[in-house]
């Protein structure tokens, strides 16, 4: 079992009793090594819930979900926190810490493992920022960067700790067409060059070209898995 994501028979519901509302029904999905998979579908189809379950941000209810070789069904909070450290997250909004510089923000992804010395953390963060084309902007706070630049910092933060998987939720939603396309391609290229698989939720038809495979969801089910 070497697939970074392997899901079968996954069910998930919000609410209790009468108000119980299933959002994921018998979902099965595999993401293979080095693959870029886009997850699309209308609002409320359960994409984001699925992404949070894979990202170990939410506890499982039913089914099996193995991420990076670890079964999440029945995993403790502690195990989930540990797993999250080997996943790179990219959010719709950059979610950078406003009181830290770009470099410090990226270094935060390394600081979680205190075994890495401070100097090495900052060096790796600087190198990663240069790789996303932000050389010279390392010491600026997020407020002094453009939207596209902030999302690049977020990409650097997601990738700096050499994660085994990148999960992204509409990373281009807040960007205009040009910078959205740039960011999406940058993310794809960076991940490909490292062999890191990406699972990205998106509504954005402009970036479908980065995908190896597009998976569509509707009403909590996976309805179509096509190679783009």
């Amino acid at each position: 079992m070497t697939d970074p994501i392997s899901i079968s028979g996954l069910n998930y519901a919000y609410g209790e009793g009468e108000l119980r509302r299933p959002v994921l029904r018998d979902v099965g999905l595999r993401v293979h090594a080095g693959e870029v998979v886009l997850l699309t579908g209308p609002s409320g189809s359960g994409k984001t819930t699925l992404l949070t379950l894979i990202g170990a941000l939410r506890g499982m209810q039913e089914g099996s979900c193995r991420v990076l070789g670890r079964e999440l069904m029945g995993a403790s909070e502690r195990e989930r926190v540990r797993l999250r450290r080997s996943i790179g997250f990219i959010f719709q909004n950059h979610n950078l810490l406003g009181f830290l510089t770009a470099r410090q923000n990226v270094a935060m992804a390394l600081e979680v493992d205190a075994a890495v010395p401070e100097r090495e953390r900052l060096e790796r963060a600087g190198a990663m920022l240069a790789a996303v084309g932000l050389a010279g902007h390392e010491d600026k706070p997020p407020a002094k960067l453009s939207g596209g630049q902030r999302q690049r910092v977020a990409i650097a933060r997601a990738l700096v700790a050499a994660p085994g998987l990148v999960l992204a939720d509409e990373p281009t939603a807040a960007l205009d067409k040009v910078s959205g396309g740039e960011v999406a391609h940058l993310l794809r290229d960076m991940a490909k060059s490292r062999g890191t698989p990406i699972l990205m939720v998106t509504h954005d038809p402009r970036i479908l070209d980065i995908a190896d495979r597009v998976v569509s969801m509707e009403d909590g089910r996976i309805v179509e898995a096509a190679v783009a």
Partner: protein
Amino acid sequence: MNVIAKPTLLPWAPENTGESNAAPAATPARARGPGLFEHIFLPARLAWRQLRAERARLFSAMAGVMFAAVLVFMQLGFRSALFDSATRLLTAMEAELFLMNPLTVASFRPEPMPRVRAHQALALPEVAQAVPVYLAQSTWRNPEDGSRRAIQMIGFDVEAGAMHFEGLDAIMPALRRVDAVGFDTRSRPEFGDVGRLFAERGPFEVQVGNRMVEVAGLVSIGPSFGADGNLVMSEVNFRRMVRERQASNTDLVAIRLQPGADIAAAQARLREILPPDVLVLTHEQLVAHERHYWETATPIGFIFAFGSIMGLIVGMVIVYQILFSDIANHLREYATLKAIGYSNGYLARVVMAAALILAVIGFLPGAALCVWLYDVVAGATFLPLAMTFERAGLVFALIFGMCAAAGLLAMRKLRDASPADMF
């Protein structure tokens, strides 16, 4: 499902994720690497960077902690000044042992005891001197404007050396004169500027009670909550001024032992030979007895403790508010940190570190301000207010505890930072 050709070593392979057989190798490295220092320092640094980013909020938090520190410092300062000043008269006495009526609750309201107990005490070979001390309050007419005010009179054998007040030795011969008294220059100013008058005129007459007496010299004792001013005089002059007292009664007996005598043994032997109508107390016990009165029999000790607690609660609410709104405003950022693998414990340490940083940066200016305020207040009230290391340490511990409590309360808000809501 389409399968892509697999590279030779996958990034999520167990060897790379720290799973399976790689895990035992990774564990010792992890245990060796991050020490306690990183465990505390990294969250603290993050907390400081976050606090520093918003100056206005930081200053208001600092002002809040400072306010609490000043309030507690003042309350504790007054409290200790009260106890110090209330016992100052007794502290100034130089004898090793004291006899006192068991019914005496405080020195400004003494119960009389038989004077003969002093003579009985002399039966012990180790007792060198047994000096009766007379205490009474009377009224003093201000020599400048004629107003009257209660004053504490202390009568004793001035030459026995059982009492030590600053300036007493110099005026000892003058106090032998009929109706001569020594005036405490640290008495409150409402008694008149006796020090200046004395310097100008030399010995002069004032009215104490219904009698004209001579101010023959000056001593330095200091007012207390029980008495605003003090007069010292010889035993004989005391009897002249307080006519209604029986000569066979006294208020306190100060006992000086032979040099090198064992105080505890002498106390035990005195206890054996004296009837139960007197207490035999060491100097510390006498001071503690007086202190006990002020602490328990009056609301004053309680009032200051209560004031301190109020200050701490107000400070805690301020710090809690600051920390709480800090977390609420940065909820997304905390949730992001949780999403990228920071544990609840780490974020809790960030909040605690923020609380403790506020404690330190609020306490330091608060303590500095209080050193100055103590001076100002001591000048206005004539109370012995001064900053001590013990009190600074105590207040810091209280402020630290206050901030930690506020941090613990604010930490509950961290639960609202749910990484699942980030997408």
